[in-house]
C-alpha cells in the first residue's frame, strides 16, 4: 500500500517526460520509416553488372529501421538524463527531501520506488513505441524482407543505455562532494560506458558492459543514499 503510493507519486512526476519522449520518438520514427519505405522500394533493382568484381559496399545494407536509430539513441539518453535530474536534483533545490524521507517506510524502499518508477517510465514510453515501429517495419507489404531480431534487441540496448545515463545522473545528484571534484563522475562514467558499448560488436559484449556499469552505479547509489549525508 505504502510502496504503491510512493510509486504512483514518482510515476506521476515522470509522466510528462515519459509522454514527451514517446510522442517525439513516435513522430520522428514514423516519419523516417515512411521515408525509408520509399527508398527501400527501389532496392529491388539490382545494379550489379555481370563479369565484374562486386564491391562489398553493394552487399551491406542498413536495416529499414536505421533512420530511427539515432533518434532512438538520443531520445532514450535524454529521457534518462531528465528523469535523473527530476528525481534526484530537483528535490535538493526545492528542499523536499526531509518531507519525502520522513515516512513510515524504510529508506531503501523510497529509493527503490524512485528507481522502479524511472525503469517503468523508460520501458513503457520508449519500449512500446519501439515495438510498434518494429512491428510496422516487419509488415511484408511495406518492406521486402523482415527485420532481424538483433535489430530489435539493439533497440532495447538503447533503452538500457538511457537507464545507465539515468543512474549516472542519479549518482551525481546524490553525491555530496562539491561540484569540482567527484560530484560529476557519475555522469562521466555513464558517457564512458556509452562509448564502450557503441564500440562492442557482439551482443554478449554489450550486455556484459551494461551489466557491469549498472551494478557499479546501483551499489554506489544505494550506499550514498543510505549514508544519510543530507
Amino acid at each position, binding site marked *: 500500500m505504502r510502496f504503491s503510493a510512493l510509486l504512483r507519486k514518482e510515476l506521476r512526476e515522470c509522466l510528462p517526460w515519459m509522454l514527451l519522449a514517446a510522442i517525439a520518438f513516435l513522430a520522428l520514427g514514423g516519419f523516417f520509416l515512411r521515408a525509408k519505405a520509399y527508398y527501400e522500394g527501389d532496392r*529491388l*533493382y*539490382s*545494379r*550489379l*553488372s*555481370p*563479369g*565484374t*568484381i*562486386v*564491391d*562489398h559496399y553493394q*552487399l*551491406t*545494407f*542498413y*536495416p529499414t*529501421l*536505421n*533512420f530511427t*536509430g*539515432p533518434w532512438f*539513441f*538520443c531520445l532514450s539518453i535524454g529521457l534518462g538524463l531528465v528523469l535523473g535530474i527530476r528525481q534526484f536534483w530537483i528535490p535538493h533545490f526545492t528542499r523536499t527531501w526531509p518531507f519525502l524521507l520522513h515516512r513510515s517506510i524504510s529508506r*531503501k524502499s523510497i529509493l527503490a520506488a524512485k528507481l522502479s518508477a524511472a525503469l517503468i517510465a523508460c520501458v513503457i514510453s520508449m519500449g512500446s513505441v519501439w515495438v510498434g515501429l518494429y512491428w510496422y517495419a516487419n509488415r*511484408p507489404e511495406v*518492406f*521486402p*524482407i*523482415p527485420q*532481424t531480431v*538483433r*535489430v530489435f534487441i*539493439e*533497440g532495447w*540496448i538503447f533503452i538500457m543505455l538511457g537507464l545507465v545515463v539515468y543512474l549516472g545522473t542519479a549518482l551525481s545528484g546524490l553525491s555530496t*562532494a562539491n561540484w569540482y*571534484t*567527484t560530484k560529476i*563522475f557519475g555522469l562521466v*562514467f555513464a558517457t*564512458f560506458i556509452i*562509448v*564502450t*558499448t*557503441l*564500440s*562492442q*560488436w*557482439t551482443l554478449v559484449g*554489450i550486455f556484459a558492459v551494461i551489466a557491469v556499469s549498472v551494478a*557499479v552505479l546501483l*551499489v*554506489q547509489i*544505494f*550506499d*550514498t543514499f*543510505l*549514508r544519510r549525508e543530507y
Partner: protein
Amino acid sequence: MKLKISLKQIATPTKIFMTLLIVLLAVSILQGIILQIERTFAHAKQRPSTTKPEAELTEEEKRIDRIRNSAKYFLADGTIHLVHKPRRTPTRIDEPEIAQIYDANDNLLWEGPDNRRPYRYLSWAMQLRRYSFTRERMKQMQMLTPGFSRNIEIPVSSYNKTEQIWRYYPGAEYFKGYNTNGEKIGYIGSTGFTDSKLKAKPFGKFGFFTAWCPQDSVSPTLLWQTQRHIYQIDFEKQNVEMIFESADSDIEIERTSLHAWRDLKPGAEGSSDPKKYRPLLICGTEDGKYHLILREPRQQLNLDVPHPSVTATKKNIFVRNYWGDVMPPADIAGSRELFDKWMEERRGKPRNLWIELYKVDNQGGLELLNRYDWTVPEPSMAVVKARDPRPAVKRYVSQISPPFYDYVLRLFGRKFWSRALNYQNRGDFFYSLARMVLDIQPYGGVINRVLSALMMIFVFLHGWPRRASWPKFVFWLVFVGLFNLAGLLTYLGLNHIAVIRCPVCGRRRGLAQVDCVRCQAELPAPEKGKLDLIFRT
C-alpha cells in the same frame, strides 16, 4: 542492518574503481593533448637525403640505379626481362611514357611507348586483401553506431529484377533467404541449401569474403573464408563447394591470393586470360605452409617457400621468389642482442637481392629455372640503442603515467600485445586502450618513480591526522605509489575528511574517528558553565 554494512564494503571498492577509471582516462587525454600540441608545433626535421642528383651519377651508379628501379618480368619460357622507365622531365599528359626493355646481361632489347610492349609476360597471383571484406569490417558493421548494425544481404536477381535476398546471420553463421514478398525460402549452410534451421550447419568463424558476378549472371558468387575452410557459394544455383580445408592451423588473410579463379569479363579489372592460365588459389596458413589449389584439372599441392608468388599456365606451374639478405636468418632474429649485433656489422655495406623462378612438379618439388641477382647501396642508418626508443617529448610526458602500466604489460604476456598491435584489431575498443597503455607507459623512468615517491610522502603527511584505520591508510599509500598522478587525484577526490584542532592536545586531528588520532582523547564535551539552567523536572 546487515545489508548496509555489507553494502558499504562493496560500495567503497566500486567507487574507487570508478573514480580511478575516470581519472586515468583524464590523465591520458591530458597527455594526448600535450603530445598533439608538441606534434603540431615541432617542425618536420628534414631527413638527410642520400640520393645524388642525376648529373654526377657515374656510369656504374647509373646502371645499378637502372636495375634497382626496373620491373623484373619473366617470359613463359623462363627468360627474365628488366623493364625500365627512365626519369624524364614531366611533359604533356597524353604523351605515353617511354619504356626500355633490357635482358639479363644488360643489352637493350626494345625501346618505345610503354603500352605497346611486344612481349607477353607471366601475370602473377594477386593478394586477396584488396577486394575482400575482412573480419575487421565485419566487426565495424556490427557495431552500434548510433544507428543500428548493418547486415550483409546478397541479392539474387535475373536481368535486373531482384527475386531473392539472402541475409547473413553473424551469430548463427549461415545465410537465410527471403523472396521479395517476405516469405522465407530456406537456409544456406556449409553443407549447402536446406529448408530447416536445424540442418543448416554454420560456416565457422568468419575470416573474409570476396564477391564477383560471373559473366553470365547478375547475382554474385562469393568466395567465403572462415577459420579453417574456404567455400565458394553460388546463390543463384544455391550450391556450396568447399574448396580448401586446412587440417590444423588457421588460414591467414595476408597470405591468400588467387589468379584467374574468377571468370570475369576479359577487360574487367583483375581478370586474366582464361586460355593461358589455370584457375589458381593460394592459401597461407599460420604454420607458414602454403597450399596451392588448382582447377582444370583439380589439383592440390603444398609449398614451403617463405614468400612465394605463384602462377599456373596450362602447361606448368611457376613460383617466383623475390628475396635478399635484408633480414637475418631465423635463429638470429629470435634474440634481441644477436639481432642488434648483426644489424651493427651490416651497417654501411651494400645489400644484394635476387629473384628466382622455379617450376613446380606435381608432387610440390621445385626446380630452379632462372636466377638473377643485383646489389643495392645501403644508406647508413643509426641503430637506436636506448632502452626507451620513443621521442623525447613522449618520454617526458609519460613520466606522470602510472607505474602500474609497466607491471600490467608483463602481466598480459607477449601474445596479447602482439594481437593488440596487429592491424586487424585496429577498430577493437579494448585493444585500442591497450595500445594507448603501450604508448604512454613510463618504461620504468627514474622521474616517474621519484614522482610516485613524492606523492606517497604527501599522502602520508596528508593522511596521518586523518587516518581512520591502519589497513585503509596503508592501502592508500600503496595505491598512490602505484598510480602516480591518477592515484593522487583519486585519493584527494575520495578522502574529504575534515580536520579540526584537537581541543585536548592542540594538534590537528581528522574527524574520521571519534577519538583523537594523537592523544586518543574523545571529542571533549563543552564545559558545563554554571550559568546553564539544566533541571530535570
